[in-house]
């Protein structure tokens, strides 16, 4: 791809970007959110067809006018957002639109046999006849990769493939990718996680503001240099220095136990007890499916199954059966997926910030926009929400700013206990740091923060106390000083219980 340019109304998304890929190479593509990575990938995939510059595949100048043409040229793209149909089985998804058929009749046995082979290649122990929607996000991601492999691609593009994967799943993916590149497949690998890039890639291209900053062999770079190139400035320390002294116990959960609503008798959480003090960040580590999200949902009263156990806030027992109870008790919940459950994208920043606290900030019945504005302005400035005004629609903001709006919504409710589920997912490096600083500052101000994250450095860097979940049980408790990532991982995989 040479001199690729692409404009959206008002934005120049790409400006003369040049990327090349050799057979058998793993080429990392990095850049902050909005740097143009996704746009570039979509041009490659034939999603965007009007662009400047030219693209060569195997020495031939190509200009794809559809996704289909791109696929036929041997390019397979795994997008960040999963594009599987949850109602269909794994096998149906893998061969969607390319079902093996004879005289228009689908050959189901052949389809499932082929799928089984592909899944086996990925070391995935999965029945291809299972409905895709019942699988966890991590597994779905691997199914998506199986789908790409089934197309005999010569160029494989992966956009943030590990965002929803556990470390074990990611390791598995890496070995698969290495194997594929040994077979001569060129791989473009987009990721925010720099250590993966060092693990995998031969060369790294950094994009910033729609331009190529550099393409260099990865082993000639270090993490600091890449970050500096991405943000155009040096980042000295990612995590804020910890100068908090936790106070009294503010939040206590005792014997939280839940069962799988679809499979009665199977525990999702089994006898979870922990406390969070004022000014403390409790980090919850664990692999995908260990019950991390379910724990936060249970505490917030929105778990679909039955929850037993006790919750105490500031010494008073509270009964939480719905988000309404939780909010009244002073709990806020920044969910994993802000687009699905955090924001009303069609509404303004203002309406989103005040959504959970309208009766207090605005009025019991009639809204008072000027009061809302006054209260929201303070928070928006404090969190540095970057938008032309508070009347900007939430859907038009970048990931980092959207996350700040969700945070602002909960600060507006005067929550004392803040539950954070993957607070920096899909957020660029600069905004990540701001969110870290924010979490630190909120804890400092006396809040109790319970944070779930798949990124271990994040858990270790921010938390005072670290809990490790494995199959619905706490298998490890650490303090900030005693923790090592190796110990957390061994508890998370259930190899050792270190309570």
């Amino acid at each position, binding site marked *: 791809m040479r001199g690729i340019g692409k404009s959206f*109304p008002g934005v120049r998304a790409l400006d003369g970007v040049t990327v090349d890929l050799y057979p058998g190479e793993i080429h990392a593509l990095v850049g902050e959110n909005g740097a143009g990575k996704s746009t570039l990938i979509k041009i490659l995939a034939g999603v965007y067809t009007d662009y400047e510059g030219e693209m060569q595949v195997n020495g031939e100048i190509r200009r794809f006018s559809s996704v289909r043409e791109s696929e036929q040229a041997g390019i397979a793209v795994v997008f960040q957002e999963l594009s599987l149909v949850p109602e269909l089985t794994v096998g149906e998804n893998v061969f969607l639109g390319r079902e093996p058929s004879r005289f228009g009749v689908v050959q189901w046995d052949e389809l499932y046999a082929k799928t089984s082979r592909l899944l086996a290649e990925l070391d995935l122990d999965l029945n291809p006849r299972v409905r895709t929607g019942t699988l966890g996000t991590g597994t779905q991601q691997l199914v998506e990769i199986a789908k790409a492999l089934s197309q005999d691609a010569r160029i494989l593009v992966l956009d943030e493939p590990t965002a929803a994967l556990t470390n074990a799943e990611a390791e598995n993916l890496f070995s698969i990718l290495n194997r594929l590149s040994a077979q001569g497949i060129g791989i473009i690998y987009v990721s925010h996680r720099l250590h993966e890039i060092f693990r995998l890639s031969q060369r790294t291209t950094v994009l910033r503001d729609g331009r190529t900053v550099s393409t260099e062999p990865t082993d000639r770079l270090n993490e600091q240099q890449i970050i500096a190139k991405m943000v155009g400035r040096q980042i000295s320390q990612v995590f804020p220095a910890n100068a908090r002294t936790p106070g009294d116990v*503010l939040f206590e959960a005792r014997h939280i136990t839940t069962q799988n609503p679809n499979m009665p008798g199977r525990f999702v959480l089994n006898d979870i007890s922990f406390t969070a003090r*004022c000014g403390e960040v409790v980090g919850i580590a664990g692999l995908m499916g260990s019950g991390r999200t379910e724990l936060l949902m249970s505490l*917030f009263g*929105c778990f679909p199954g039955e929850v037993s156990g006790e919750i105490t806030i*500031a010494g008073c027992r509270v009964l939480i059966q*719905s*988000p*309404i109870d*939780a*909010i*009244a008790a*002073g709990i806020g*919940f920044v*969910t994993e997926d802000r687009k*699905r*459950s*955090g*924001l*009303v*994208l*069609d*509404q*303004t920043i203002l*309406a989103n910030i*005040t*959504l*959970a606290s*309208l*009766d207090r900030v*605005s*009025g*019991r*019945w*009639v*809204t008072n*926009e*000027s009061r809302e504005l*006054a209260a929201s*302005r*303070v*928070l928006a*400035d*404090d969190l*540095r929400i970057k938008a*032309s*005004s508070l*009347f*900007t*629609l939430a859907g038009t903001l970048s990931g980092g700013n959207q996350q700040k709006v969700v945070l602002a*919504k909960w*600060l507006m*409710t*005067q929550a*004392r206990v803040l539950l954070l589920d993957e607070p920096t997912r899909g957020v660029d490096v600069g905004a990540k740091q701001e969110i870290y600083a924010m979490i630190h*500052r909120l804890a*400092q*101000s*006396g*809040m109790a923060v319970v944070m779930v994250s798949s990124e271990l450095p994040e858990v270790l860097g921010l938390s005072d106390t670290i809990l490790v979940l494995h199959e619905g049980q706490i298998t490890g408790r650490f303090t900030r000083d005693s923790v090592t990532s190796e110990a957390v991982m061994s508890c998370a995989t259930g190899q050792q219980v270190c309570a």
Partner: protein
Amino acid sequence: MIVKIKEEIKVTGNVNAAPAEAVATKRSESPKKHWRVPSGTVRAYGMVAALVLMWVIFSVVTNGIFLEPRNFSNLIRQAAVTGIISVGMVMVIVTGQIDLSVGSLVGLAGMAAILVQYYWHWGLILSLCTALVIGLMVGALQGWLTAYGKIPSFIVTLGGLLAWRGVAKGISQGATYPIEVRSFRDLGQAYLGRSVGLALVAVTVVAVIWSVLHRNSMRKRHGLPPWSVAALSLRIMLPSVLAVGFVFALNAYAGVPVPVLILVVVALSGAFLTESTVFGRHLYAIGGNPEAARFSGINLRSQVLIAFAILGVLTAIAAVIYTARVGSAGPDAGTLLELDAIAACVIGGASLAGGRGTVLGACLGALFMASLDNGMSLKNVPDFVQDVIKGGILVAAVGFDVMGKRRE
């Protein structure tokens, strides 16, 4: 502990007063694009322009009959029934639901109001109450089945479409009944005195001036650039001129029809409810993202039930006007009104996926549909052609909207 946190936030907020100013000045560079209120207003005036264009076309092809005071008055009166239902319908649509039963409910509520007059000689108030209570109960029942019973509203109200019509036919035994109470008939047929119309429009103009000036002073208070004199006068003049012209046009015939007054009151209340109350904000949140609304502590079920109940009551009001205008209650009254009301909402910019739509848009949509009906009838366009044209315009209106959004 809460107090402490609050203080912390306040303190940091003050420290950051400077960035706040920076944000404010930056805003002044491109205020147009990002202001929700003007963009909505622009859209509304766009619809008014489309309406005016249609009126011009109709008055040309009918040699001016279309815009004669008599016909204009008639047209507006026709629009009142659809308009009142649309105000309620848009609330239900905003939550992502639909109500297909309103046409049948018009038939049922209207029939019930007349039957209590016919059999038991109930007076104006009692027969009105009968209609309203039936509307409220039907709306609340359907809302309850949708929100608490988790039956899709499409199915609930499709059942209602059949069932309520059936009840109306049953209680009337298929016959048509005349109105007994004279004042009841006035609700659909009487006119306000010319001077009353003028007084009302004077109040409207004063209210417009006050609200624009009030909004402007709020902008100043929040550090936003105040509107220029031109923008200010445009904001005052446009709605004022429209209101004055409207009343004069109606006065040129017989004065403002009572149904139109009722529509205006209903529309203003509906606009207030959707735009300036917590309930309204919840409606948009529920339709825009039900999951986020639930996680924000909104009681989805009760709000959806209330929206349906409001629609039920408004439908009953529309039923009274409809029956009063026709002069009698027949078992087929109000057939297909649900389609007019839904079309009005959609033409007015509501999204059936929920989260989008305004009361003003729905009212303009209702006027649009009524004008289309009226104009084509004047031109003696055959019934079946009218239906085809109306269907085509509905699809085209949404098509244009989708195209416009894609371009954005």
